[in-house]
């Protein structure tokens, strides 16, 4: 409700835009991470040895300067903090938006909004749930779909066999959510960071959104798809 007072002593860091900047920066961290992760996953196509070697290498990277799994832990901390920041900002803005319009329209058309932009919040929640599932599945192995092979390669390949088709389906659905989140997220982050103040740069940011969405989600999806269809076994 509007209060007819003027704010005194305002700070940039306490604004909604600061929250948005936090989302954009953490979002970019995610993009960087998923790009690398996707690249790693594609090593499935180079065979078991390459994949397992890569998984091992991840853990021993920087040794002896870093302890075993050192890099991974740095990465995990950064990712965890990012998720917390990203989700906090997302929910804070979500709450704010619902407070900004308590009385809904009887009829409301969306003229320009893309489906992706409208799905950001629920899509984000879906991604969060997926990540939890994914960690329980492939990192902590709490969820075992097919025994618990030692080799990461085997774990992946056995998970996506047609017999457990539902696992692949969960992953593929998550990739759709990811694609949509990235399609709007990349454009949105550019806008939030103030990189799009001409029509041309806006078109570029939009293109980058579509491009990264297709490349990343597509890249990830190749793995379960090719296992499911028996291209990789």
């Amino acid at each position: 409700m509007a209060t007819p007072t003027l704010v005194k002593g305002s700070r940039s860091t306490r604004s909604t835009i600061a929250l948005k900047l936090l989302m954009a920066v953490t979002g970019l961290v995610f993009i960087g991470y998923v790009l690398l992760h996707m690249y790693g996953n594609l090593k499935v196509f180079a065979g078991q040895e390459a994949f397992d070697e890569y998984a091992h290498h991840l853990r021993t990277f920087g040794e002896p300067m870093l302890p075993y799994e050192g890099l991974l832990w740095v990465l995990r901390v950064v990712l965890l903090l990012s998720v917390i920041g990203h989700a906090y900002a997302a929910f804070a803005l979500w709450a704010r938006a619902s407070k900004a319009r308590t009385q809904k329209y009887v009829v409301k058309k969306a003229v320009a909004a893309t489906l992706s932009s409208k799905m950001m919040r629920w899509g984000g929640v879906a991604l969060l749930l997926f990540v939890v599932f994914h960690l329980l599945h492939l990192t902590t192995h709490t969820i075992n779909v097919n025994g618990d092979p030692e080799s990461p390669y085997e774990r992946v390949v056995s998970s996506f066999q047609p017999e457990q088709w539902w696992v692949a389906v969960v992953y593929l659905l998550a990739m759709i959510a990811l694609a949509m989140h990235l399609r709007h997220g990349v454009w949105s982050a550019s806008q939030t960071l103030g990189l799009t103040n001409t029509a041309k740069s806006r078109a570029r940011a939009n293109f980058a959104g579509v491009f990264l969405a297709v490349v990343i989600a597509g890249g990830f999806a190749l793995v379960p798809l090719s296992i499911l269809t028996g291209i990789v076994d």
Partner: protein
Amino acid sequence: MKITLNIWRQANASSKGAMQKYDLDDVSEDMSFLEMLDLLNENLNEKGEDPVAFDSDCREGICGTCSLMINGEAHGPEVTTTCQLHMRSFKDGDTITVEPWRAEPFPVLKDLIVDRSAFDRIIQSGGYISVNTGSAPEANNLPVEKAKADRAFDVATCIGCGACVAACPNGSASLFLGAKITHLGELPQGQPERESRVVDMVAQHDHEGFGGCTNIGECTAACPKGIPLDVISQLNKDLRTAMLHGR
């Protein structure tokens, strides 16, 4: 043509409102949307029913007073103001839903009229260049690059109607805010206060209860003056710069 109207009626700010149906014959294509409502009001008056309250003043698309949500679109189906919308945009037999702008910082005063004084307070918080009357230097001592002057003009054409807020799923006034930030920030005169302006105006925007922008773009599609999304990018950039400078 014949039109059926579904209109939000609400007696005052504190009462609960509801949609109500009215039938209207003899609507001509050349009428503006508001002239059609004038006609409805003449009929209601005749029948002894309270006419529908709606805002308008210039009726030529420049004052920003008119403000109707028509069939779920701010200012209706054309890119223009409600007062410049004509009945030829509708068909004989159409049902048209008319609602007020919906946003917590824009409380409904009566029927289709809302209170937009939050916009004035956003301007009060910093939407100006501090120059006292009489202390201005000779105008041509300060050349402004044509491209910049044109951009400043383009965004300065915002009429403060609030359609951006009405259309935004988040109830954000970022387009309005960005337009003013860009207008003043584009000009050399606007530089000294540039950082404090953006911080203060954004704080006031948030304080009024407008939502944060998530770059959905409904606002610019509804804006009768075609204020582009770059102003929001500019707004974000200016705030980021101010933040880096510790404001």
